[in-house]
C-alpha cells in the first residue's frame, strides 16, 4: 500500500474535476458576497422615490438642527459673549462670556469649527444636484413638489451661510457638491457671502408656501408629502421664514431700506403663515410658544415631544434651569439679580418687574428671584410640558425668529432710516403685549429703546451678541467696540483643526 501509485491520468482527472467543483462553488459564492447593508443606502438605491427626497430634505434640516444644538452652540455663539448671563462653574462658558474665544477648552475649540454648518451646505447642494432624478422615476414626486423642495434647500443653504458669516465673517463659499473631491477653497469676503445668501433667498421665496400641507395655501395647496399642516407647522421654512431671514441678511449687511421691506413683508403676511404676537403667558408657558412645533415659530428647529424628539441638550434649559424646576442644584449659567433689575426697570413689565405695593418680583422670566439662586426660566419645556423636573429631557425648539423679533428688527431699520413713526409703532406692538405702556420718549431715544426691548424680549434666544454688534455699528459710540468691529474682533477665531485641514484658510486677523 505504501508504494501504491496512481496512474497519472487518473490523478490529473481527479485534480481537474476537483478544481471544477471548486470553481462552480466559487462562482455560486460570488453572488453570496453581494450583500446590501441594512444600515445604509448605497448610491444605487437612493434618489429613486419620493421617500428618498423626503429623507434627504428633512435630513438637511436635521443637520442644521444638529449644528445649532451641538454643545448648545446656538446660545454659546449668540447669547454669551459680553452678555447678561454669568457662568457658575463652567470655565469654558466663562471664557466665552469674557470673549476669550481662543481659550483651549474643548467646547470652545469645537465651537470654532464650522464643519457642521458645511455638512448642511453639502447636504443642500447634494439635494439641489440630485433631486431631479426622482421626478423621472417616481410619478408621485411632482414638478411642484420638486420646486418647493429645491426652494427650501436654497433658503436653508442661504441661512447656513448667513449664520456662519455672523460668527466667522469671511467664509468659503461652496455652491456645488464636489462629491469625494475635497477641493480646498479660500474664504470669500463676508459681503459676497451675504449677497449670495440674499440672492438665493430671493429666488426661493417665489416658490415657498405660507403653510405646508394646507389645502388653501396660495402657492402650494394640498398635502405635502402626504401630510397635512399639523405635521409641518413650525418644521419647515416658509415664505415668511425666508423673508425673515432676508431681513436679517440685509440688516447684518447694514442695508436698512431692504431690511425694512423684507421685515414689512413678514409683518404683513405673518397671519397667512399662522404667526401672531403673543401674550407673555403664551411665550413663557411650559406648553407655550417654545414647546413642540407651532406656527408662531416663524423659523425654528423643533425637538417636538409629539415626534419623540425631545433631547437632553440643544436647549437653553440645559444651560439655565436648576432647582426647583429640575433636579440640578445650580444652573450652568444664571443672570445676577443686579443685572435683572437694571434691565427690567419699568413697572408692570410682565416679564419682570417689582410690584411697587409689596416690593415682590412679578415675573414670567425668572424663578426664585432674590434667593441666592435665581433661575432664568423663560423657557422650560420639560418633556410633555411637564412640571416634574426629575428628568431633564427638553422639548423646546431652537427658535431663530418670531414675530416680536421681526417687529423690533423692522423698528430698528426704520429708526436708522429716521422713519420714527413706524419704528415706534412696531416697538409699541411689542411693549403693549408685555404689559408696558406705549413709548413716549424722544425720537433720539427710539433706537436705544428698541435695543433695550430686544435685550428684554429676546433674552435667552441667542440674540444678545449680534444685537450688540448691530447696535454699535449704528451708534459707533463705544471706542472699544468700534475697534473690535474694525479689527474683525466681533468674529470667532477659526479652530486650529479647521485651519490645518485647508491651507488656503487664514485665521481671523483679530485672533492671530
Amino acid at each position: 500500500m505504501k508504494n501504491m501509485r496512481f496512474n497519472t491520468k487518473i490523478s490529473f482527472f481527479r485534480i481537474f474535476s476537483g478544481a471544477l467543483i471548486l470553481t462552480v462553488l466559487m462562482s455560486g459564492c460570488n453572488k453570496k458576497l453581494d450583500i446590501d447593508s441594512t444600515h445604509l443606502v448605497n448610491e444605487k438605491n437612493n434618489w429613486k422615490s419620493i421617500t428618498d427626497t423626503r429623507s434627504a430634505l428633512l435630513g438637511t434640516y436635521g443637520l442644521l438642527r444638529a449644528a445649532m444644538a451641538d454643545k448648545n452652540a446656538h446660545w454659546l455663539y449668540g447669547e454669551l459673549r459680553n452678555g447678561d448671563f454669568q457662568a457658575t462653574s463652567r470655565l469654558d462658558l466663562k471664557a466665552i462670556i469674557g470673549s476669550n474665544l481662543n481659550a483651549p477648552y474643548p467646547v470652545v475649540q469645537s465651537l470654532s469649527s464650522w464643519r457642521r454648518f458645511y455638512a448642511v451646505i453639502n447636504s443642500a447642494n447634494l439635494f439641489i444636484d440630485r433631486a431631479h432624478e426622482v421626478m423621472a422615476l417616481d410619478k408621485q414626486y411632482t414638478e411642484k413638489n420638486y420646486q418647493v423642495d429645491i426652494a427650501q434647500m436654497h433658503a436653508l443653504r442661504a441661512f447656513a451661510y448667513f449664520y456662519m458669516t455672523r460668527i466667522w465673517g469671511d467664509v468659503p463659499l461652496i455652491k456645488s457638491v464636489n462629491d469625494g473631491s475635497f477641493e480646498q477653497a479660500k474664504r470669500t469676503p463676508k459681503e459676497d457671502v451675504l449677497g449670495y445668501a440674499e440672492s438665493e433667498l430671493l429666488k426661493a421665496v417665489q416658490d415657498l408656501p405660507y403653510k405646508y400641507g394646507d389645502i388653501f395655501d396660495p402657492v402650494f395647496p394640498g398635502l405635502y408629502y402626504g401630510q397635512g399642516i399639523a405635521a409641518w407647522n413650525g418644521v419647515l421654512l416658509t415664505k415668511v421664514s425666508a423673508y425673515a431671514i432676508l431681513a436679517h441678511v440685509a440688516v447684518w449687511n447694514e442695508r436698512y431700506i431692504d431690511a425694512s421691506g423684507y421685515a414689512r413683508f413678514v409683518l404683513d403676511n405673518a397671519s397667512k403663515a399662522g404667526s401672531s404676537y403673543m401674550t407673555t403667558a403664551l411665550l413663557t408657558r411650559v406648553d407655550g410658544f417654545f414647546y413642540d412645533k407651532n406656527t408662531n415659530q416663524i423659523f425654528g428647529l423643533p425637538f417636538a415631544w409629539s415626534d419623540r424628539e425631545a433631547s437632553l441638550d440643544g436647549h437653553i434649559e440645559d444651560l439655565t434651569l436648576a432647582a426647583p424646576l429640575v433636579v440640578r442644584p445650580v444652573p450652568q449659567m444664571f443672570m445676577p439679580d443686579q443685572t435683572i433689575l437694571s434691565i427690567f426697570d419699568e413697572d408692570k413689565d410682565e416679564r419682570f418687574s417689582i410690584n411697587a405695593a409689596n416690593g415682590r418680583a412679578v415675573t414670567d422670566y425668572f424663578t426664585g428671584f432674590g434667593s441666592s439662586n435665581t433661575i432664568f426660566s423663560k423657557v422650560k419645556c420639560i418633556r410633555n410640558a411637564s412640571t416634574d423636573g426629575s428628568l431633564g429631557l427638553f422639548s423646546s425648539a431652537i427658535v431663530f425668529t418670531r414675530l416680536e423679533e421681526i417687529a423690533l428688527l423692522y423698528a430698528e431699520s426704520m429708526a436708522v432710516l429716521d422713519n420714527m413713526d413706524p419704528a415706534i409703532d412696531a416697538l409699541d406692538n411689542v411693549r403693549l403685549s408685555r404689559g408696558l405702556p406705549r413709548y413716549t420718549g424722544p425720537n433720539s431715544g427710539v433706537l436705544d429703546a428698541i435695543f433695550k426691548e430686544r435685550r428684554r424680549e429676546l433674552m435667552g434666544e441667542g440674540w444678545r451678541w449680534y444685537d450688540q454688534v448691530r447696535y454699535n455699528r449704528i451708534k459707533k459710540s463705544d471706542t472699544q467696540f468700534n475697534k473690535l468691529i474694525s479689527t474683525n474682533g466681533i468674529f470667532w477665531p477659526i479652530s486650529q483643526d479647521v485651519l490645518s485641514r485647508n491651507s488656503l484658510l487664514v485665521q481671523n486677523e483679530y485672533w492671530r
Partner: protein
Amino acid sequence: MNKHRLIPCQCLLVSFFLVGLGFPLSGFGFQDTTSRSKKDTVAADSGSVKLRRFVSVKNVDSLPLKQLGLIPFSSLQQVIKGSVAGVYVQETSGEPGTTEQSMMIRGLPMPLLSRKDIYQVQPTVYLNGIPLIQDNPFMFDVQRFSYLPIGPATNLLSTIDLDNIESINVIKGGAAAAVYGPRAANGAIFITTKNAQEGLNQISFNSYYGMVQKDQVTPANAKNENDFRMPFYNKFASPADMDNYPAYLRDATNENYYGPSNWTDLYYKNSPVHNINGSITGGTSRSNFRFFAGNTKSAGNADDTKLDKYVASFFINMLPLKWLTVSSMINATRLDRDRNKSFRDRFAEMQYVPDLSSPISPNKLIYGSLLDEYKNRAIDKNKNNAVQGYFSLNAKIKDIDFISRIGFDYNEGLRDVFYPSTMFDGNNFVSNYFGYNQRVVIDNILRYKYHLNEQQSLNLEAGHSFQADVNKYNYAFGYKGSSDYIKINVVNGDPKSDQYLLPKDFIVSRFTDRQKSNLSSLYAKATYNFKEDLSLTAVARTDGSSNMQPSARWFFSPAISADYNLKNTLLKDNSTFSKLLLSASWSRIGKLISDDHFAAGPQYNVDLGWSGNPAFYSYGGFGTLSRPYTTGWIGYDIPWSYVQETNVGIDAGFFNNRLQTRFELYSKNNNRMLLPMPVNAESGYTAAYQSGMDVNNSGAELILQAEVLKGTKGQLSWTSSFNAAYNQNKLKALPGGMSEILIGTQKLVVGQAIDKFWVLQTHGVFNSDVEVPVDPKTFQIFNYKGLPFHGGDPRWKDLNGDYTINESDKVPLGNYIPKFTGNFSNQFTYGDFGLNFNFYFALGRNILNQAVAGRFDFINRKGTNDIAAVDEITFWQTNFDASKYPVYNPWSAVQSYRSDQDIFIENGSYLKLRSVSLSYDLARLSFLNPRKRAQSKFLVYMTATNLFTITPYTGGDPEVVGYTGIDTGYGLSMPKTYILGIKVDL
C-alpha cells in the same frame, strides 16, 4: 491496526490538518502512537516538553496546559497571557468576565484611534476548527459614551473551560496562518478540546474551591480632600472661586463627609470561587463518545463582581465504513455575570449624566443604603448563551483524503436593567438588550499524496471554505416609568390601537441593527519533502469578502516556507547539537474588515446626531438620510489591505535535548490599511477614508527550555523555561504620501511608532506674570494656543521657539505597547510532588496616569459635569502622593493639569508572580487507582495567583490599564486568588 498504520510523516501531515481543522484524531483508528516524528518532540513549546504536539514548528506555539490547568483563569486571554512568546494581552479591569480584554499577536498592527479599533486587531479563535464569532462593534454607533458596549458586555472567550481542553496552539507567523486566510491575519488561536478516544473508557473529575482576597487600601474622607485642595485655594483662588468651594468640603462638621470613612468594608470583600466538572469517555474503535459538564464561579476582589459559567459538551465519532469517519460535536456554555456598580458605567448606560458636584459619602451607612437599593430593588442581569458544533465526514481512499464539514457558532447576549427612582434623581430607568452573533462555516478539503520516489514526496491539497455571519441586536432603554414596581418596559398589546407596540409607561428609545457578512475562500497548497531533511511549502489562496467593494472583492495571496534540518545533513556526528533546524517563510494574507460600510462605497445613512446625542435619527417625526459626515466619506476602489510577513527561525537542541531553544525574527507589514484622513471642514465631512497606511511590526522571540535536573523517579527534577519577546512598531506610510497627521489628539508621524504618547514637556512653573517671556520680535506674550501664560501656569517647553505652545510642541514620549514581554516558569518534581511557579513580565512600557491628572484637575472636571469626572466610591482612598507633582494654578485657562504632559507619563513596566502551585499525585495509592492504569491520576493541588508585583508605577495595578495605556483609575486590580483542588482521571 497494522493495516491502517501510516508512515510517520504522513501521519503527521494528516494529523496536522485534522487537528488544525478540529478533527478528532482518535476516531480514525489508525493513529500511530509508537513512532516519534521529529516534529512531535521538538521543544518549540514554551512550556513542557512532555506536552503532546500535533503541529509543525513553523510559528506555532503550544501552551503548557498541564501547568496552566492548575490556575483558576476566567478567560482565554488570561490563559494566553505570558504563556506564549510574542502575544500581548491587555486587560482593562480585574472584573471577571468583562469584555474589555484584548490579545495582540506580534505587536500592534494599527493605531487605536477609535473604540472600535481594538476589535479589528484581535486574532481569530478556533474551537475544534470552528472560527468563533465575536461581537461586532457596530453598537458603538448609537452610544453616547463608549466605555463599554451595550448589552451584557461579557467576554465571549470566557466560555473556555481548561479542563475540557486538550491543547491550545497559537499561530503567529504568516506562513502558518496562510492556510487559514484572512481570518488569521492577526494570528489565530487553535483550541482543541479533549475528545472521544478509542479504547479509553475514562471518567474524569476536576474541582477546586478557593477564595479571592480583598485589596487593602487606605480609606480617606473629606478632610484628606480638603487638605489636598486648600493649598491651591490659598494660593490661587479669587474670592469668587472661594465662594464656589464645594459644599461637601466646606462644612467640617458634616458627618457624612468628614465622618468615618468605612466604605471599604462593603466594597472590598473576600469572595469564594469554585470549579467543578466531570467527563465520561467511552466506546469502541468503530464508535466512541465523550461527555463533559462543568460549572465555574470566578470573582473579583471588589464591588461584588462575579462570573458564573456552565459548560456542557458532547463529542461522538463513528466509522460506518472503514474509509469513512463521521464525527460531531456540540458545545454549549452559559455565562451569568454580576457587573460592577460604578457610577460611570451606570450613567454611560443611561446616557444621562446627573449633577456630579458632590461625590457619594465615604460612610458605610450611606454607601450601604445604595448597595441595598441595588440588591433589593434594582435589576442588573447579564446572560450569555453560546453553542458551537460541527458535523463532518472524512473519506479516505488510498492516498486521497476528502473532508467535508459544516460548523456553526451561535451566541446570544441578554441584559435586563432596572434602576429604581431612588437611585437616579427620582426617575427610574429600564433597559433591555438582546443580541446575537451567528456563524455558519462550510469547509471542503481534498488532499492527495504523491510519492515521487523513496526519498521525495509531494503533498497536494486544495480546499474551499464558505462562511456566513450575522450580527444583530435589539436594544431599548426608557426613563421615568410611573412606578418602581413596574420593572419592565410594557408595550401596548392591542393591534387595533394606534399606539400598538408603543411603550405604555416609560419614555423609550429603541435601537436595532443587523449586519450580514460572508467570506468565501479557495486555496491550494503543495508541500515537497526530501527525506526528513528539507521541506518546501507553497500556498496560494484567493478570498472574497462581502465587506469589500465588488470591484475589489477578491484578493489573491501567496505564501512560501522552507525548513531545513541541519542536524540530519551537516551535524550528524556532532554531540553538542542534538537538533538544529532552520526555517524561513514569506507570506501575504488579506485583512478582513468587520464593518460593512465600506462595501457600499459612497452612501447615505442617518447622521442627525451631535456629540451629546449621537443616535438622533428623525426630523419632524420622519426618518432621514444624509451623507456620513460624522463618520467620514467612503469612496470607490478601496483595495484589500494585507499583512506581509517575513520570518526566520532556528530551533536547536543541545546535550541530548536537555537544553532546547528556539529563536525567531520577524518583520510584519500591515499594508494599505484604511485611515479616516482629515479633510477640509468645508466639505462637511470629518474625514475621508483612504487606504494606504502601512505599519511595520518587527521583533524577536526567544524560547529557552532546560531540564536543569533530570531526576528519575524518586529524585528531584527541575525544568525551567523562559520565553521573551521583543517588539517594535513603526508607521511606514500614510495615505496620500502624507508624512504626519493629527487625528483628535493622536499624532501619527511616518517613521515613528504608533503607540507613542504625544505630550508637552514641563520645565517648572511661572511664579508670576512678569516671568512670562515676550517674543522680542513680535512683542507677543508667550502663550498656549494664543492664550498668554500667567503666574501659576506651567512652563512648557517651546520646541520651535515661536512663543506659542501648541500641538507642534509635543514630543513623542514612551509607548503603551511593551517592548519586552515574557514569562519565566519553573517546575520541580520530587516523587509525586510537584511545584510550579510562574513569573510574568512586561517591560519598556509607559502608562499615562490620568487618574492622578484628574485629581489635580478638580476645577475643570467639576465645572464641566463630564462623565469622566464621576467620583466613584473609590475616590475616598489615598492612592497618590501629591507632593511629587508641581503646584500649578488649577483655574488657569491653559488647563495646567492637562493629562497630555510629561509629568503624568510613568514607567509602567512590571514583573508579577502570576502563580504558584503545589501538587501531589495520589494515583500510586492503589485504592485510588483500582484499575492500575498509567494514564490515571489523582492530583491534589494548591494554587495562589498574583501574589506580588514589582513595578515603578505609582498608580494602581499596572496590569490593568486602558488599551492605549491610559490608567483612568476605574479598573479593578487583578485579584489574589487562593485555591485548593483535585484532578482525577479514572
